């Protein structure tokens, strides 16, 4: 009598489970590891390169110019060159300045995403923060430095939270779609900011009423710089605030009950409600937290290096919109958002002011950035598809002998590794990491593992993962992170290490039911008529 025997026409279309994107992307959160975002970015850069090549420029020199313009080459500079106002260093500091903002506007998209909400309003929330920070920075000039800066940051974050909270509130109370309301709030903020800074506006400067721009932030509200000169727009301590925000984001999501609730609502609002979570309240809270991140971004920009903002700047500003691409590419995770923000920070600066006009025309390059941004967002939309294949493959691998019957051929692995000078071992390294990830649904994955092993971390990581797998099954782990020490001994140590890994995995799989999703259960029972 189970009604799932008839899955089709009995489900009314409105109640049909509609896999909301947030849910699907959330599902993708743990799948695929590093490789999908990296592939996405590479694909977008390739497509951008094709456009560059098709229009008669050399994509290699163009990208090389952008790389240098972003200051990334400084990372590889000779250590004894201590000249900090070196142009590469300056470029990198500017890249990091933009990264600061992008981290926060990215988090402003990523956080509500985890709650199943798509916040397109990062730009508006950012502007609100910018405006409030400017107001505090200009008007509370008598305050001492630290309280002044803190007040500016706090007020801006609060204002951003309130602004985004409107959309959350409307969603919770009237069901208004957050995408539409955040788009509207964006433009209200854009025009509102132009009003405030514009001619006759309340926040226009007092000394030149012909110029439609704000007053300058008082010196007491400037966030001090730590890299480069404050006169040359050096990198300010706001950078660390953004890094801290990444940590806070991670902590909220993974180490607080609020984060647990937010993720539950994002994955399945009905189950969350069943679990006793107030779904509407989570919508409001998620949007408010998101707005606080964006507002913070505005404050750090205003008090960190802008100090003054005009109507034309408002019109040209796009940084909040870039948060969408940053969050999507970063898979709405803390580390991902950080890395994606760094990538886009470099791209944004390296294609504009950092770019040497003799290498590649910055006005072309700036638009290339928009194109790559668009392509990345587009591909993220499609990598649901990639992930679908990815997951399917993983499932197949898992059920249909991902591990060979009778265990893996440890001796063969060692022998072949020996004769291929370790190359075959790298393949097994990849497989081992991939397996661990498939089993635990966390970890760095195959490619990540191999990359991390190159810098030495991986050899400790893998045994520690495998050890945890045993502990989680309530069994005594045969190996732990310390087993990685074997790999310190050259060559022979590596082989012993490899043997230990493979033997431990064999032991693990031998004791565990490897086929969790197989065998259809037929519910028909014996009937005697």
């Amino acid at each position, binding site marked *: *009598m*189970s009604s799932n025997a008839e899955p*089709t026409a009995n*489900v009314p279309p409105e109640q049909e489970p509609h896999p909301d994107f947030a849910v699907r992307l959330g599902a993708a959160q743990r799948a695929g590891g590093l490789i999908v975002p990296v592939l996405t970015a590479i694909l977008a850069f390739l497509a951008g390169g094709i456009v560059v090549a098709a229009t008669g420029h050399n994509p290699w020199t163009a990208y090389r110019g952008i790389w240098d313009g972003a200051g990334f080459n400084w990372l590889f500079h000779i250590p004894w060159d201590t000249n900090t106002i070196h142009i590469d260093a300056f470029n990198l500091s500017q890249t990091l300045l933009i990264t600061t903002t992008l981290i926060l506007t990215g988090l402003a998209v990523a956080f509500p995403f985890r709650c199943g909400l798509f916040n397109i309003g990062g730009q508006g929330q950012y502007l609100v923060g910018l405006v409030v920070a400017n107001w505090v920075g200009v008007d509370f000039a008598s305050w001492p430095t630290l309280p002044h800066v803190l007040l500016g940051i706090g007020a801006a974050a609060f204002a951003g939270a309130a602004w985004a909270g409107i959309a959350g509130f409307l969603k919770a109370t009237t069901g208004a779609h957050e995408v539409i309301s955040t788009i509207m709030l964006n433009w209200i903020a854009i025009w509102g900011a132009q009003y405030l800074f514009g001619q006759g506006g309340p926040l226009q400067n007092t000394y030149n009423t012909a110029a439609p721009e704000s007053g300058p932030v008082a010196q007491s509200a400037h966030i001090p710089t730590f890299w480069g000169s404050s006169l040359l727009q050096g990198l300010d301590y706001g950078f660390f605030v953004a890094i801290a925000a990444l940590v806070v984001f991670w902590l909220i999501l993974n180490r607080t*009950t609020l984060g647990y609730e937010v993720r539950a609502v994002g994955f399945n609002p009905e189950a969350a409600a069943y679990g*006793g979570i107030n779904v509407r309240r989570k919508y409001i809270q998620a949007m408010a937290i998101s707005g606080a991140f964006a507002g913070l971004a505005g404050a750090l920009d205003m008090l960190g290096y802008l100090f003054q903002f005009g109507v034309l700047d408002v019109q040209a500003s796009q940084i909040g919109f870039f948060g969408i691409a940053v969050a999507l590419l970063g898979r709405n995770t803390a580390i991902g958002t950080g890395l994606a923000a760094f990538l886009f920070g470099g791209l944004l600066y390296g294609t504009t002011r950092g770019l040497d006009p003799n290498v590649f025309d910055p006005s072309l390059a700036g638009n290339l950035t928009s194109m790559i941004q668009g392509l990345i967002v587009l591909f993220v939309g499609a990598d649901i598809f990639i992930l679908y294949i990815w997951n399917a493959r993983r499932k197949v691998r898992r059920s249909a002998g991902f591990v060979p019957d009778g265990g893996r051929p440890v001796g063969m692995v060692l022998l072949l590794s020996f004769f291929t000078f370790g190359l075959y071992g790298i393949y097994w390294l990849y497989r081992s990491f991939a397996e661990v990830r498939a089993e635990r649904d966390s970890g760095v994955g195959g490619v990540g593992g191999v990359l991390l092993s190159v810098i030495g971390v991986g050899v400790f990581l893998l045994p520690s993962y495998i050890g945890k797998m045993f502990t989680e099954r309530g069994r005594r782990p045969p190996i732990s992170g310390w087993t990685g020490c074997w790999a310190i001994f050259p060559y022979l140590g590596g082989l012993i290490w490899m043997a230990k890994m493979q033997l431990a995995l064999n032991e693990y799989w031998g004791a565990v039911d490897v086929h*969790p999703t197989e065998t259809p259960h037929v*519910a*028909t029972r014996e*009937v005697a008529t």
Partner: protein
Amino acid sequence: MTDEIPTILQLRGITKIYPGIVADDHVDFDLRRGEVHALLGENGAGKSTLMNILYGLTKPDEGEIVMDGKTVSFSSAKDAIGAGIGMVHQHFMLIPVMTVAENIVLGVEPVRNGVVLDERGAEARVRELSQQFGLAVDPTALVENITVGQQQRVEILKALYRGAEILILDEPTAVLTPQEAAELFEIVLSLRADGKAIIFISHKLNEVLEIADRITVLRRGKKIDTVPREGATEEGLAKMMVGREVLLRVDKTAASPGGVSLEVEDLHVLDDRRLETVRGVSFSVHAGEIVGIAGVDGNGQTELVEAITGLRQIDSGSITVDGHRFEGRLDPRRMIEAGIGHIPEDRHRRGLVLEFNLAENLALHDYTEPPDSRHGWLFPKRLVERAVRLIREFDIRGGGPFTLAKALSGGNQQKVVVAREVARNPVVLIAAQPTRGLDVGAIEYVHRRLVAERDSGHAVLLVSLELDEVLSLADRVLVIYEGRIVGEHGADAGEEEIGLEMLGGRKQAVA
């Protein structure tokens, strides 16, 4: 074989297998011109699947469809419509914001001057059809403004407009009031008089006996028999439908009920369409007993359970859990804290966050309190510790604390839900269709757990569509029909008596 009445449709050996279940197992079925042929069976007997195959919505794994002597195959509803088959789905395929006439002509619209939609023509044609078959409906009204009964007529007209000779009515009375049902029967008879062949899907004995010429009974995907109406009785059909089968014997001793743990008083609840689906239900469940609620799907069970667990607002009445009386606005968190455990009827929709791992899923109720969390800080290690313990204790296979819930088999997913609810030591455990879609082993497991829960002195309320299950587990059986409790029986109640009450055979047997 009767020679005068031609057979226009034959289904031969239709088999359809879904993962985990054989929906139809070599089913034969035939239909003659000008007859009403009822397809009778319980939920999940394979009726709807069979008709979806006939209507081209689902492909059979085996078997063939023969129409007028020729084997046909339908790859879409369009093909079936073309062959003169019309289907009225249980959930209507109507567009609420469009008019009746627009809904009927959609896809084969009459056109004026080459391009213009001929609304007048459509309305006239609809009027004509509705007069011909006695289906009173206003063609200009918006579908969202007409009653469910009228919407059903629109669906029938939609099929007739497309020239249907065979009409499939899928549980047509499920959504109707008794008066509307009576009107529907008249319509069906007039269609039959007009030479149409009608397949009438139902699980209600009385109406099948009232309307059908022949009755085919399906049980668990198999055709049991086809009988003419003459000579058929409710008792005989009920026996065929339910079957004499090996009951899943659950070892249990006699109950030793204690004090009242759950008391429901005069509860009224509305469904999503604001219709009253629970109409004054009162009962109590004592500690140390299993009370089973038996009933056919859609008689208010879902809403009743949702109300008791705080997931649906109650219209009036009260719920008392362990001495705490709840009225007015309820919310799930309060009910959880009052001591209600709930195994929901759909573990994918509600019971589990499929994208969460087992550790997170097992904490779904308790994460707010120590040791899981303190002052809003969550301690994932504690979650994992609990998961490791419960996975061992409840024998959950196929994954560890970090395995995503969606990676488990159905039985193990249900074990996760059971583990979570039972481990909290609830005052009252509400199990709604706890064995739906599970294999035999998992069913036995869940049953044993429920009995163990009873034996440890907790109250258990079991709501199930499977009468066997209720009979083999419950110490007391309540029968729900159309939102009211219509019967109460002891553990030794007769299956047929209860079956009749479930099917409305003996209305208002008990007030």
